[in-house]
């Protein structure tokens, strides 16, 4: 109890050896040295190295993480670059293919048109040929017919005594006859 009280209450009748209160006392120096040596040795042995190590570990970890992140980032950038290049290549390729296709289609179209025109011309010439042949044949036919008929007519004229009316009627009928056959 006396000891605890001495913590809180100042010594009433301070020590009789009336030393100046500002001068150091041996008994206090002793304990100050003991305390400091304890603090220094234990902290230097256990605490400071551990704290330093923890700080360094974290520093290393952060530096490692940053370096790794940097590496990953440059890698990603490289592959992005690669992809972009490939994309550009693909785009160029596609453009080229489209151009080629357009050229080919153009060519095909031109070919088709040319062929169609040629066909049409062909058909036309053949048709004209047909027409010409048909008309030739018809003319030849007609010539044959006319000559036949003329011959026949002449026969008839010769056979009958012909008056004028009869002759006209005859010619008319003949013409009609010819028109009827022609049509």
């Amino acid at each position, binding site marked *: 109890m006396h000891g605890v009280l001495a913590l809180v209450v100042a*010594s009433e009748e301070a020590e009789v050896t009336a030393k100046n209160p500002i001068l*150091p006392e041996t008994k206090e120096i002793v304990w100050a040295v003991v*305390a*400091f040596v304890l603090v220094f040795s234990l902290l230097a042995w256990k605490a400071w190295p551990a704290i*330093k190590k923890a700080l360094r570990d974290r520093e290393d*970890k952060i530096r490692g993480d940053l370096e790794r992140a940097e590496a990953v980032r440059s890698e990603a950038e490289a592959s992005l670059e690669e992809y972009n290049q490939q994309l550009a290549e693909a785009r160029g390729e596609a453009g080229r293919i489209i151009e080629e296709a357009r050229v080919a289609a153009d060519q095909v179209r031109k070919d088709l048109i040319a062929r169609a025109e040629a066909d049409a011309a062909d058909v036309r010439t053949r048709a004209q040929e047909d027409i010409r042949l048909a008309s030739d044949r018809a003319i030849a036919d007609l010539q044959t017919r006319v000559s036949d008929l003329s011959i026949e007519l002449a026969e008839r004229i010769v056979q009958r005594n012909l008056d004028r009316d009869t002759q006209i009627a005859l010619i008319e009928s003949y013409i009609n006859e010819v028109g009827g056959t022609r049509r």
Partner: protein
Amino acid sequence: MLLAKFTFPPTDELFRWKDMVFNDSPYAINKTSFLVMTSAVLIIALFVGGSRKMKLVPSGVQNLLEVTYEFVDHGITRDVIGPNAARFTPFLGSLFLYILFLNFWEIIPFIQFPPTARAAIPAYLAIQTYLIYWYLGFRHNGFKYLTGHLFPPGVPLPLYILVTPIELVQIVFVRPFSLAVRLLANMMAGHILLTALALLTAYTLTNAPIIFIGPFLLLVGVTAFELLVGFLQAYIFTLLTAVFIADSLHPEH
């Protein structure tokens, strides 16, 4: 007069304590020694206990330990001594914590006494710093360390009659003395100031309640200020120790 009967106790009563155990022996423990040992136990418990399991992601006590280490390592060791002085951080860190904990007893309720206000502790620490200073100086520079101090270059020859004794007194007596006295006097003055204000507050509370609020607010303010002083003095003592070490390693600066 409101304060006619206010008396202030003699200085002895503020700074001298009865022995608690081992009475009247050279290793008797009084309040000062008790607080010094308690501080040592607290620091060791906090720092050795707290640093047993250091994690990569810090939390709680570990933050405190790391902040303290960084403060001493960057703010004091590297700034003052140099980038390759990490080997001094354990000593300077322990010194800083030791003084800091002792200073803070000044404002801990019911204790309210800084052991650093007793000459024993600052004197011991200053002498210790000085022994390290001279040891490192001679180890790194040989005997010309002393001559370099006593005969600084670039001084006209006749002036050495004046300069050398001043330098001798300076390095042998004034520097360690001022190192110890700075801490001691700051803490003594703070303790006296706080005691005076506390006694004045108690006195006015019973005898002159009209002006009670004045000393009370002053007491609160000065207590906060002493918190700052306690930290600052620990910092300055450590900083000066670092300056001395730097000086003994590279005396040309």
